[in-house]
């Protein structure tokens, strides 16, 4: 029974790890890509837990859920097409089509907005009339000719690694299980043997936080052009009335809309 559970858990974890990695590289939506990468790491964490390294496995899950979600936020903030709405309309290989299933292809909006505004189209354009046709300056730079080469390189490296695993002469096998109370062992190692490295890393992170606060603080010299806000400002801003983003009601935007959200 236990052995069957172990095999099942190994199969599920391995599948999640590999399918997640594959999905990460082939899906057209960057949001999904981040989620797939997270799933892949969680699958690897499952493998860690199966190897009785539960502390490392849980640390991995904690780091990657928080880290990937924050990374996705930044991706949505700065990327051209985080939801993959424009990329989904292109020719895709079967595997890309599989991992991008369900993405609604949208045409980019014409006129008015430049590239910086297009990412808002995907998840606000819920009234369904995508009437603006035409490929207005669609940037296809994500589809590079390098990709097949990268895939072949990955296959070669993978083959070499698996070959090394298979032809390695002898595997050292230990009969005993690792220490189940690994948290205490790791804690003692961090606070005794590796204390300098541990505290040094903590100090570096603290300096990093100081640097971030320093950079984010309001400028002392607002006239200094190097410190001006790095945002694209339209010369002639579009009227809000023409904006097809449905209004959000709220304390600061206090027109409580009737039924626009759904």
């Amino acid at each position, binding site marked *: *029974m236990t052995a069957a*559970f172990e095999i099942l858990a190994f199969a599920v974890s391995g599948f999640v790890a590999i399918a997640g990695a594959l999905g990460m590289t082939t899906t057209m939506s960057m*949001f*999904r890509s981040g*989620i797939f990468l*997270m799933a892949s790491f969680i699958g690897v964490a499952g493998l860690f837990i199966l190897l009785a390294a*539960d*502390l490392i496995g*849980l*640390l991995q*899950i*904690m780091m990657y*859920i*928080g880290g990937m*979600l*924050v990374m*996705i*936020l930044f991706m*949505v903030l700065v990327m051209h097409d985080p*939801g993959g709405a424009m990329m989904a309309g292109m020719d895709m290989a079967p595997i890309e089509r599989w991992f991008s*299933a*369900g*993405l*609604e292809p949208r045409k980019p909006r014409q006129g008015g907005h430049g590239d910086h505004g297009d990412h808002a189209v*995907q*998840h*606000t*354009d*819920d009234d*369904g009339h995508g009437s603006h046709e035409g490929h207005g300056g669609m940037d296809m730079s994500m589809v590079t000719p390098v990709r097949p080469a990268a895939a072949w390189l990955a296959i070669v490296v993978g083959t070499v690694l698996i070959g090394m695993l298979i032809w390695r002469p002898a595997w050292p096998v230990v009969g005993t299980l690792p220490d*189940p*109370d*690994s*948290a205490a062992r790791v804690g003692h190692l961090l606070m005794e043997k590796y204390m300098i490295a541990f505290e040094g890393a903590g100090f570096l992170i603290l300096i990093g936080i100081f640097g971030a606060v320093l950079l984010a603080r309001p400028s002392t010299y607002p006239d200094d052009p190097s410190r001006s806000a790095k945002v694209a400002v339209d010369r002639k801003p579009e009227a809000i009335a023409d904006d097809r*983003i*449905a209004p*959000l*009601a*709220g*304390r600061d935007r206090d027109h*409580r809309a009737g039924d*626009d*959200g*759904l």
Partner: protein
Amino acid sequence: MGVIVTAIAVLAALCGGAGLTSGLERLFVRPVWEPGPVHAADLRHPLDLPNADRWLLPAGPVVAFAGTALAMIVVPLGSGLIGRDLGIGAFYVIVVIDFVVLGLALAGWGANVPNTVEACYRIIAQLVAYVVPLGLAYVGVIMMARSLSTVAIVEAQRGLWFIVLQPLGFLLYLVTGLMQSYRAPFLEPFAVSIRGGVLGASGGWSALLWRIALAGVLFLVAAIGAVLYLGGPNGPVLPGWFWMTLKTYALMALMLGLGRLVRPLSTAEMLALSWKILTPVGLLNVLLVGGLILLGVRP
């Protein structure tokens, strides 16, 4: 077969706890207040969102429910009434409840509606706000109990509850626990202004799963708070499960009541509160507990 029986028992405990929780929460809802995670959702009719992501939207409630069910495993409901006594139980709870945040983010983005996408952003920002002080609220207890196992933490409080020795840590846990369960002052991701966020865009089975998962989060936060600071199932005369239930729901009522005394905070205010007040308080608590341990004070 033992595993399957345990799994069913844990799920039953979670559903029962979540049911009682939503009953208790009804008492703390007034029409003029923001309902937060008890925002109305249509359980009867599935909702058809034409632009929804057909993979991410249904994955959300399932992931969130799985997170609460996994966390429920290590909650000791009485002597011997525990799914599995993991050696790193307390840390495991912190990690596994993160799946609720992941589920909310998945469904928020997947519903593909402005309100839910806004809720997705807010939920991630809220995770950043609470995760560090929450960890610090656990650390004081773990230092004194000298173990991460929930059973060992309960055992360590046989003589004296940790709330007496670490009142600061308990206060910190109250605030961060409310943040982790999206209750009263920290209900920005479920605000009325974005029509309940993810809840407003759910219907049918997904609304039911959200109900269980969101009530389950509050139940878990209160139960873990009872384990960490109130001695868990320890108590005289009456059986352990009775004391555990009593402490859990008393703590929950305290948290919900205190939360309603403050006006709801925006996500930015939550982040400011977390970094400027809660994190320093947590570090101070760790320092105080370390001093107590060096002085030889133990329960």
